[in-house]
């Protein structure tokens, strides 16, 4: 209903604009009926250009003030996260500076040199020096960015097997996630979707004849011990999915028919993250919004929303069908002891089969 009302209001505004133009047109018709801009048009639009420049600056400032607590630029929960965040901050600062200057020049020139009858433009077709300057400066700046960027990329994507990473398989299907741990031997058993046997509860198609598979553990929550490198092996059984873990600055597609990988080291436990001032602020704010929404829902006789508590999340970030928007898994980062205790409660693959 709100949407409809909005539309109606918009239509009325438009009708009003329309009528105003008509009046404007009629008023002008007597003086001049040329559809080519005259000095008055140049002047009005020249001033509007400066107004528009102000609008761009204002929308930039407002956006940064209101929504500038960018979770993807601070508060990283993985070892490589701060590297990405630094690069992001450098790039954003650079963009901010260039944007501010070039938009100023563009709109200011449009205002300053607005046309007047009798004025002659400067015949200025070329200047090699100027052009060399604004070719070379971007070259230098970009060379710096490329070198820094590639360095970061190689650091992140390089997997060091010597670290003895905890190997975990992320398994995607429409529309949920599973995790498979290698068990005591930290080695995943072989698997292929052709081995899936729903009747025997072999839902990931793990190869029963592979001895490494026996102690594998399949879970619906992802638990990670803090400080230990993790190497994810991604698989998908049906369509493309993408394992997106924004808090850890990690993402990799899950591709049917191949195994992809991504590794990182979580550095902040869920409990610690909940205590950080940024996160408590964010959660308080979200809960305030949820309480307000709940009031509306209760008034309509529906259930109130649950209170939100922060958790790391794994989201699907590649369009995968109808319920793509609800394909998620909770990630819990905890101390080694907590992790071990949780792991002990899980059933190993061999015992989870129905014979």
């Amino acid at each position: 209903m709100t949407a409809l009302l909005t539309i109606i209001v918009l239509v009325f505004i438009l009708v009003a604009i329309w009528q105003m133009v008509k009046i404007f047109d009629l008023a002008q018709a007597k003086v001049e009926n040329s559809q080519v801009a005259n000095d008055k048009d140049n002047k009005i639009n020249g001033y509007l250009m400066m107004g528009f420049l102000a609008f761009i600056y204002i929308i930039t400032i407002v956006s940064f003030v209101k929504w500038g607590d960018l979770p993807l630029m601070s508060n990283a929960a993985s070892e490589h996260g701060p590297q990405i965040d630094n690069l992001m901050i450098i790039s954003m600062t650079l963009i901010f500076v260039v944007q501010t200057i070039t938009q100023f020049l563009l709109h200011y020139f449009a205002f300053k040199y607005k046309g007047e009858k009798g004025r002659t433009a400067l015949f200025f077709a070329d200047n090699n020096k100027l052009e060399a300057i604004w070719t070379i400066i971007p070259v230098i700046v970009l060379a710096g960015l490329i070198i820094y960027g590639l360095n970061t990329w190689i650091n992140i994507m390089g997997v060091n097997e010597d670290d003895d990473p905890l190997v975990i398989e992320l398994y995607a299907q429409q529309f949920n996630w599973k995790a498979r741990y290698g068990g005591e031997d930290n080695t995943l058993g072989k698997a292929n979707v052709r081995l899936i046997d729903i009747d025997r509860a072999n839902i990931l198609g793990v190869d029963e004849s592979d001895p490494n598979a026996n102690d594998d553990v399949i879970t619906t929550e992802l638990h990670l011990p803090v400080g230990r490198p993790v190497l994810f092996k991604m698989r998908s059984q049906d369509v493309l999915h993408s394992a997106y873990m924004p808090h850890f600055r990690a993402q990799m597609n899950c591709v049917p028919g191949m195994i992809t990988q991504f590794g990182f080291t979580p550095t902040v436990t869920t409990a610690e993250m909940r205590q950080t001032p940024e996160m408590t602020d964010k959660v308080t704010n979200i809960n305030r919004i949820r309480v307000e929404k709940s009031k509306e829902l209760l008034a309509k006789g529906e259930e109130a929303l649950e209170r939100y508590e922060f958790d790391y999340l794994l989201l699907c970030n590649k369009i995968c069908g109808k319920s793509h928007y609800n394909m998620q898994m909770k990630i819990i980062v905890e101390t080694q002891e907590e992790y071990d205790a949780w792991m002990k409660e899980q059933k190993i693959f061999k015992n989870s089969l129905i014979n």
Partner: protein
Amino acid sequence: MSAHEDTHAHEDHGHHHKETFVTKYIFSQDHKMIAKQYLITGTIMGVIGVFMSMMFRLQLAWPEKPNVLFEALLGKWAPNGVMDADIYLALVTIHGTIMVFFVLTAGLSGTFSNLLIPLQIGARDMASGFLNMISYWLFFLSSVIMVISLFVEAGPAAAGWTIYPPLSALPMAQGGSGLGMTLWLVSMAIFIASSLMGSLNYIVTVINLRTKGMSMTRLPLTIWTFFITAVIGVISFPVLLSAALLLIMDRSFGTSFFLSDIFIQGEVLHYQGGSPVLFEHLFWFLGHPEVYIVILPAMGLVSEIMASNSRKPIFGYRAMIASILAIAFLSTIVWGHHMFISGMNPFLGSVFTFTTLLIAIPSAVKAFNWITTLWKGNLQMNPAMLFSIGFVSTFITGGLTGIILGDSALDINVHDTYFVVAHFHLVMGISALYGMFAGIYHWFPKMFGRMLNKNLGYIHFWVTAVCAYGVFFPMHFIGMAGLPRRYYTNTNFPLFDDLANVNVIITIFALIGGIVQIVYLYNFFGSIFFGKKAEQNPWRSNTLEWTAPVKHMHGNWPGEIPHVYRWSYDYSKPGHDEDFVPQNVPLKEGEEELQH
């Protein structure tokens, strides 16, 4: 025009066959009529595409709220007026397809390449009028098929405009991947055939049919961009065609080019050995050059309009051509930046980061050259000029964030979030649309012999400009908060609850921006019939099309084709009485041609 000249033209070129309504308005082989046909078909597709975006914006701002609009238009896809998740994805998919291909490729390039290539190089018509006609009618056919696909029982294609398999290949994965996707693929295959015919025609025409004196370095930048765009199209579109054909094979004939090891709905499919990543490579080998196919013609139009309305030569003509060539070359070797996290070898990611960030250099040169063109000009603020300045503004804003997305390390984080959506909408969507509007406002007198109303044009520009920033600027921020794109609703993630109000703001701007286009449509269709009659050269421009009579005629010029003696940017040249010197004016004695 005198009777004598008239007969002269006829004798010369034999365009004296009787024209019927059908040969003049429907199966026309005249490039000017074909341009108009492209423009009007593109406009209709544009209305559909923009309207779809307004519908899914309503859903994003007020998720799962019943809306009479949905109930009326979506029927079974909106039970009780609540938009269904499947149709949301379909709307997003078809919006993308229509806007990228049908509006900004065919509507923009098709219109202006057809209109301006013969007129600006001084040719009677395209090299092959017949091929040109076929090209338009194939485009029309593909548009009709795309629109028909909206009414398919199981829903239109809904796998995103990138149609990555297996989602797009398996009807059991998604309703839209049945007949809807088949029609999508057929429509696109026909579209590509149309585009190739058009492109070949443009290339041949520019190379062979330039008038006497029209050397390559005297060509207006519009022609340079259309020419290079056509070259990129010819190189990359066939690759998409091959991807589409292979996908059709996988879908209908049981091959396994893109599919392997799939278990879906309780059964293992027979596919073995293919790879979806291969499809991504093929798709983006077109998909990335495609954004330049969209933006280059807009750049050409803007360069021309800016010079003409600044009453100044375009600054750095040679550098402009060099940067067009550099962009065209680089555009074919950067496609992998869409695939940093696709499972591709990370080393390849490094290579693509390198080539991608290089594109910033020619782009920066172009932006600085446009800004310098304004400097010390005598700017005539016609609506076309406003849209051109708007183009540079959004091109800079949108282009700069490309530095983040092209950097593989940063892409990990913002890939497929709303940050990407904001980036490409500003840099290729809004910018190209501005270029197209600029072109329409500028060449409307040439196309229809009448002027567009400038006051409606001003309102159209300013409201659109504010709304474009209002929609896409805040969108960067929800992207940087980690919000993935193509989510039907975000309510399942309390983590994003604090972004809901941003989505409302964006939608309000989108609705205003969408609705204000009615002003433009009214102006456009009204002025075709009731606009003020145009003079021959209303903007006092130098290019050859303004030496042709207002009333359209076969062969463009009565009598001889004008010869060219100078480049097209002699505005405010010292030593001349007027502040413009058309290309067909011979050099004065002792006048130096600007050697570029």
